[in-house]
């Protein structure tokens, strides 16, 4: 079918075969794959490097140097976003662009869309790398990027990437779409839905501009508040967060596996039936699993149960992928010992199997009560990303390198070295952090003979982890070293490329209309009941074969599959008020507290501190009363957190003096020996922009927060300044610096917020709100 030719065919333009009529000529666009491949490795190294930096900071907190843009709370989102969206993202695009063209026997629909996709995505990554260290964040994990970048993502993903991909499917020359493409379809559809519905916001800068006619500062211009609050925001966020794992880190990589593994192993895929069953069960079940991130929180128990049982049911659908992967290697196992590419794939798929067994395990409520907020989760995700995503990516890249650069791989030895160094690094990382997670989880819940906490001082439960944090640094460094060897190998391979890449012209007929190629279903059973025959035909899967010819219909069914779980969880949460019982004494944050809360979000405090006390004795004894759903109705976004590197702050309000907080921000180690929290000197010198607080308050009011009288012209600013002065004076009286020095500093707003946290439920209920109405 393929012939060598040097004549150029541009874009998707279809030329006829010179001899035979009916055949169309086309050339695959490998240039775009090369670009995505380079981006994958380079951003991968950046992601791993930032990971190593923040790993060092946890073991040695002075490594933040008191510099704002190097602080853990700001860099950790950069690390996660880079690993997921830059490294894994570009790897997915490289895989999709390489395999889709070949599986469809068609060049990508539009070279322009391909280029817009590539450069658009790199621009998004650069924007992320610039905004996150500056503290510009939405404060929701893996959805930190602020609203203008959200819009860019939506356009680049759906229009450039999705448009290009689906138009290629429509113009394909292969009748049936292969299982890899099913997974790509699920990826594109679901990520779009997740991204859009978790990123609905009100931009505070625009509100400020419209209401007050003044240009907002960049800080306010880039600030947004989600339309969801508290419990609902938590549900949406973890519906998104978990399915980012499902549809950004799992389905596209299964697609990648289904193309590149049989190619590299030169073996047929183990079972077509298994592909069908595990694809649909995976897509249908995954979307329900999100609430397992919120066990024992203020999320209603029914939602938690739904999240758990669907996670348990997800075990076999996930393992279906692993079985199909490993079993495809039957007959090629002897090559695994000599071929580092297959080694990468085998370890990658094995890590996938381990992670997808561990996932259901961690989703079981009682297991989760131990693992949640600890490093166990961190170990779990690193097994997934380093092992599954990382090694599948490297396996794919090494397989593609000679094909993309049309030369020999520079060094198979270096490739094997990369594999071993990466594997050792990964194992060191994961084992140390498992140990850290279980150690800390057990220490939190340990009681002494008198029924009190054995380790009442939180810092004790962190100090003990430091040796394991150093092992993690070593593991991370090894993995990074492996990636650097990979980049070197790729660079050296590229250097021996031909002067001009050969572009092979392929020929295939266009799809004809009215296909009738299906063999009829056999009647296999000795049954003559109509139901029996129909059931037998269904089991033979011909209906699915016909679906594989109709990508649009296929896409619609995927959409239906993911919509069911989403709607069943979200609709009751928004419609049934008993899910979030109101508490009369819970009031909106004051303008200054709201400003402080925005600083809390901006500094990424949620990366180390939770705000959610679970109904366990060891938890309430340490932190205070159990958190209630009604306490979070003004929290936009919610800040429950997912990891306690520091203690929970849900009931922090009033527990310590302003001065303690002030000194603690100045240098935590001064007041809390062995604390690994970074210093925040910039909060002590940075000034509050009082005028722009109006933009914050007005945005919240627009979302239905009852600010009442405060919204009248001038009142907001006045109220904020008054409260700041009161706190500054109290701080001075407690022995802090003079009030005139601190009254306009960011630290005052942050203290105002911290002193409010969790205090509303113990307030005396006010009979009427006559006080607020009076002039």
């Amino acid at each position, binding site marked *: 079918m393929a012939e060598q030719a040097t004549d150029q065919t541009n874009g998707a333009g279809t030329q006829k075969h010179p001899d035979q009529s009916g055949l169309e000529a086309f050339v695959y666009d490998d240039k775009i794959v090369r670009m995505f491949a380079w981006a994958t490795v380079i951003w991968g190294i950046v992601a791993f490097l930032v990971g190593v930096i923040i790993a060092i900071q946890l073991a040695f907190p002075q490594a933040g140097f008191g510099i704002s843009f190097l602080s853990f709370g700001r860099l950790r989102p950069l690390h996660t976003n880079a690993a997921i969206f830059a490294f894994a993202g570009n790897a997915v695009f490289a895989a999709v662009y390489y395999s889709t063209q070949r599986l469809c026997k068609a060049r990508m629909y539009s070279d322009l869309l391909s280029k817009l996709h590539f450069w658009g995505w790199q621009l998004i990554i650069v924007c992320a790398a610039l905004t996150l260290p500056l503290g510009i964040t939405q404060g929701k994990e893996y959805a930190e990027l602020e609203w203008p970048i959200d819009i860019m993502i939506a356009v680049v993903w759906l229009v450039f990437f999705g448009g290009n991909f689906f138009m290629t499917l429509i113009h394909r020359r292969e009748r049936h779409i292969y299982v890899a493409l099913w997974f790509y379809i699920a990826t594109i559809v679901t990520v779009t839905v997740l991204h859009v519905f978790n990123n609905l916001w009100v931009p505070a800068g625009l509100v400020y501009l419209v209401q007050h006619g003044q240009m907002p500062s960049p800080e306010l211009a880039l600030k947004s508040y989600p339309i969801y609050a508290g419990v609902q925001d938590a549900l949406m966020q973890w519906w998104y967060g978990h399915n980012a794992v499902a549809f950004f880190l799992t389905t596209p990589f299964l697609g990648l596996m289904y193309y590149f593994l049989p190619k590299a192993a030169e073996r047929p895929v183990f079972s077509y039936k298994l592909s069908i069953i595990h694809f649909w069960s995976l897509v249908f079940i995954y979307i329900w699993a999100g609430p397992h991130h919120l066990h024992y929180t203020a999320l209603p128990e029914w939602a938690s149960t739904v999240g758990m049982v669907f996670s348990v049911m997800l075990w076999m659908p996930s393992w279906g992928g692993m079985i199909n992967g490993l079993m495809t290697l039957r007959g090629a196992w002897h090559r695994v010992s000599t071929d580092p590419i297959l080694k990468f794939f085998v370890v990658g798929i094995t890590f996938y199997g381990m992670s997808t067994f561990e996932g259901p395990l961690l989703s079981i409520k009682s297991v989760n009560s131990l693992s949640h907020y600890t490093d166990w989760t961190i170990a779990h995700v690193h097994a997934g990303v380093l092992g599954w995503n990382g090694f599948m990516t490297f396996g794919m890249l090494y397989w593609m390198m000679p094909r993309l650069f049309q030369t020999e791989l520079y060094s198979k030895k270096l490739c094997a070295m990369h594999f071993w160094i990466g594997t050792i690094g990964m194992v060191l990382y994961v084992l140390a952090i498992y140990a850290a997670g279980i150690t800390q989880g057990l220490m939190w819940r340990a009681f002494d003979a008198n029924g009190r906490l054995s380790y*009442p001082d939180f810092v004790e439960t962190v100090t003990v982890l430091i040796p394991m944090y150093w092992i993690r640094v070593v593991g991370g460094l090894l993995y990074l070293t492996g990636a650097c060897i990979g980049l070197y190998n790729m660079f050296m391979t590229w250097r021996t490329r031909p002067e001009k890449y050969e572009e092979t012209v392929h020929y295939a007929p266009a799809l004809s209309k009215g296909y009738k190629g299906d063999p009829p279903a056999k009647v296999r059973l000795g049954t003559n009941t109509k139901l029996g025959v129909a059931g037998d035909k269904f089991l033979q899967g011909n209906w699915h074969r016909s679906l594989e010819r109709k990508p649009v219909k296929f896409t619609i069914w995927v959409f239906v599959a993911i919509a069911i779980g989403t709607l069943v969880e979200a609709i009751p949460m928004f419609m049934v008020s008993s899910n979030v019982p109101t508490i009369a004494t819970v009031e909106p944050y004051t303008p200054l507290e709201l400003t402080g809360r925005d600083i809390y979000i901006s500094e990424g405090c949620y990366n180390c501190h939770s705000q959610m006390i679970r109904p366990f004795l060891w938890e309430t004894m340490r932190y205070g009363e159990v958190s209630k759903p009604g306490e979070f109705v003004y929290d936009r976004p919610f800040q429950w957190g997912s990891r306690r590197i520091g203690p929970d702050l849900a009931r922090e309000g009033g527990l310590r003096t302003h001065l303690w907080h002030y000194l603690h921000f100045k240098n935590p180690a001064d007041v809390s020996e062995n604390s690994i929290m970074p210093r925040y000197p910039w909060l002590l010198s940075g000034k509050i922009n009082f005028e722009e607080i109006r933009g914050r308050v007005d945005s919240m009011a627009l979302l239905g927060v009852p600010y009442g009288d405060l919204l009248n012209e001038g009142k907001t600013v006045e109220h904020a300044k008054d409260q700041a002065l009161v706190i500054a004076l109290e701080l001075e009286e407690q022995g802090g610096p003079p009030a005139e020095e601190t009254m306009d500093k960011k630290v005052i707003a942050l203290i105002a917020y911290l002193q409010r946290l969790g205090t509303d439920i113990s307030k005396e209920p006010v009979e009427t709100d006559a006080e607020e109405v009076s002039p």
Partner: protein
Amino acid sequence: MADQKNDRYDELMSHNYDGIQEYDNPIPGWWHLIFLGTCVFAVLYIVIVHFTPIVPSREEAYNRKVAAAEEAQFGKLREMPMDEIKIRTIMGNDAWLSTGQSIFNGTCTVCHGKNAEGISGLGLNLTDDNYLYVKNIMDIVDLVTNGTENKKMPAQTNLNPNEIAMVAAYAASLRGKNVPGPEGSDAGEAIEPFPDPIMDQSGG
């Protein structure tokens, strides 16, 4: 499915995508079994946990634990009014005093230091004879409950009255250890000695 294993294994399908072929192999039986098992588990879990009284609700389970823990930790203290006798009784009981120490380590050391020696500018030394806000032993209870008027010390709102009594008793018991503290941590003046503990090891 097992009976088809021999004759239908590794049969290639007609599919060919860029050279990739697929077998028509059946799905392993254990896959079906476990998948079905997890589905049955899901249904049973929902029914048992949410629709039968066998498993107590999350809230009920927590409340039971709290009640049991209060009984175990505080025993007869729960019936005693908050007075000097109560504090002295705790001071005379090693187990209760050690509970007081645990509360102290989780609550007070952030300002008063790991050994109650005080932290410059934040908390006073509690091991010497000088006191700034305390004239008698019940003033300690009042301080922990309400904080100081000038807000230099906040009220510890997360503690219940029995915990407050225990931590106050422990704080009182530190007097006389005279751990050297930073400059200024010995503010205040010497006060009358606290009354003696009531020695009673029962109930702790």
